[in-house]
């Protein structure tokens, strides 16, 4: 909440030069509206669903996910979210929360991960992945991001993520950085976190999964990035693809030390 205020003050300062004093009241009113929604975040519903899914025997093998290794050992959930994405030796790749969940669903439960990756967001097993990610994030709520950069693949993915973040393209020449490269900017009325450093990187990256009030949907980071790319007029990023994971590493490392507030509530 404090961080939010700071961002707000920064953007207010930039309005000082503008003649319309009504603007300040509008911003305050919007801030009031957001505060009203904090109490009673429907993300709670998805969190409860995710916990249940984790502990329920499912899939062709009819087992639970309770032995899933999210990086801190089989079954350790608390604190895992703030260290993801990270390198996993068993798959020999860097994975984020959602792609790692697919690995566990395949190896432990016998699901076909590649098939789940193809399901549109919000349907079938995809909505279960989102609920699971919501619960996993909630178990680390309030903890500080501490992604590892020890493994060469982790460092490499950071560098790739940085290049992707600044990559301009699509019909509108947008990059991630067009909206998220500077402090105190807004698109329409939405504050845009500067994802290249804290506090923006920690706040922005650390808010997802989040409940979107505009459509009443729970969005994980994969869908957040997917919809950013949609608005950027880019082609479609494949679920769990290396581009999305590299961006996760870039934002997460930029947000080191920032507090994870996921699951949050967003416009």
């Amino acid at each position, binding site marked *: 909440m404090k961080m939010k205020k700071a961002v707000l003050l920064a*953007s207010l300062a*930039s309005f000082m030069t*503008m*003649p*319309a004093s*009504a*603007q300040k009241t*509008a911003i305050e009113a919007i801030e009031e509206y957001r505060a009203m929604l904090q109490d009673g975040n429907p993300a709670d519903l998805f969190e409860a669903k995710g916990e249940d899914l984790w502990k329920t025997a499912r899939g062709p093998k009819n087992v639970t996910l309770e032995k899933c290794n999210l990086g801190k050992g089989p079954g350790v959930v608390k604190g895992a979210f703030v260290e993801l994405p990270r390198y996993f030796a*068993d*798959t*020999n*790749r860097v994975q984020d929360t959602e792609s790692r969940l697919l*690995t566990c669903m*395949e190896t432990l439960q016998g699901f076909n*991960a*590649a098939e789940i*990756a193809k399901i549109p967001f919000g349907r079938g097993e995809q909505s279960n992945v989102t609920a699971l990610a919501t619960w996993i994030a909630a178990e680390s709520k309030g903890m500080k991001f501490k992604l590892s950069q020890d493994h*060469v*693949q982790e*460092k*490499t993915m950071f*560098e*790739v993520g*940085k*290049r*992707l973040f*600044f*990559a*301009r*393209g*699509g*019909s*509108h*020449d*947008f*990059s991630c*950085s*067009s*909206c998220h490269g500077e402090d*105190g*900017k*807004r*698109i*329409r*009325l939405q504050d*845009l976190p500067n994802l290249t450093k804290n506090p923006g990187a920690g706040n922005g990256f650390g808010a997802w999964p989040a409940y979107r009030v505009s459509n009443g949907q729970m969005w994980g980071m994969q869908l957040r990035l997917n919809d950013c790319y*949609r*608005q950027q*007029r*880019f*082609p*479609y*990023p*494949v679920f*769990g*693809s*290396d*581009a*999305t994971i*590299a961006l996760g590493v870039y934002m997460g490392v930029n947000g080191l030390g920032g507090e994870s507030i996921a699951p949050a509530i967003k416009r």
Partner: protein
Amino acid sequence: MKKHFKFLSPALAILLAGCAATVPSGPDLDKLTLEIVKASFRDEGQAKVDRLVQDDANRECSAADVAGKPINEALGKSIEEANFKTIKWPSDGKFLGDWKEGEKIAQSGRGLTWTDAAGSENGGNCYNCHKMDPKEISYGTIGPSLYNYGKLRGVVDPASPDAKAMLEYTWGKIWNSKAYNACSNMPRAGHAGILNETQVRHIVALLLDPKSPVNQ
């Protein structure tokens, strides 16, 4: 080896795992990024993977952003010159359309995403980044305020010869923003086919017509 869920193409796996001890050098990272992009995106609706191909402006400006430095001055100049040449001036010599139509285009952020129907009318996305009509409180701040755009630039009568230079600049900036600033954040509305000539005319009117709410 047990088959695991992965997206890495064989080439990537070699690049990533082959040189296991060290992070690749800059040019290798650029190459790896291109490989990863190729493996990570697919066509969806009208948004095809060919949109990932960068022209000189996008490639050089992205590289400058990664380096955290402004673009080399001479390079920037040549990008601006090349982009200036792409500007299509109004075929009938008329720069000014209807500001009321311009306001509608400025409000709309639709078009060209993979969820938009191909061929549907595109918006200008103007309010996403700019303040324009002060009655619209939901405006972005990525670009500068355009409130009183024409008034502040002394455009009293758009038909007068005094106003010609500003009409041309405004038209050109909307058509291809990179003609004036190589690494501008602004889309190249005309050049990229986002807005057609008629729509650009309406936006110019929204900005320069003394009757437009932008200039009240």
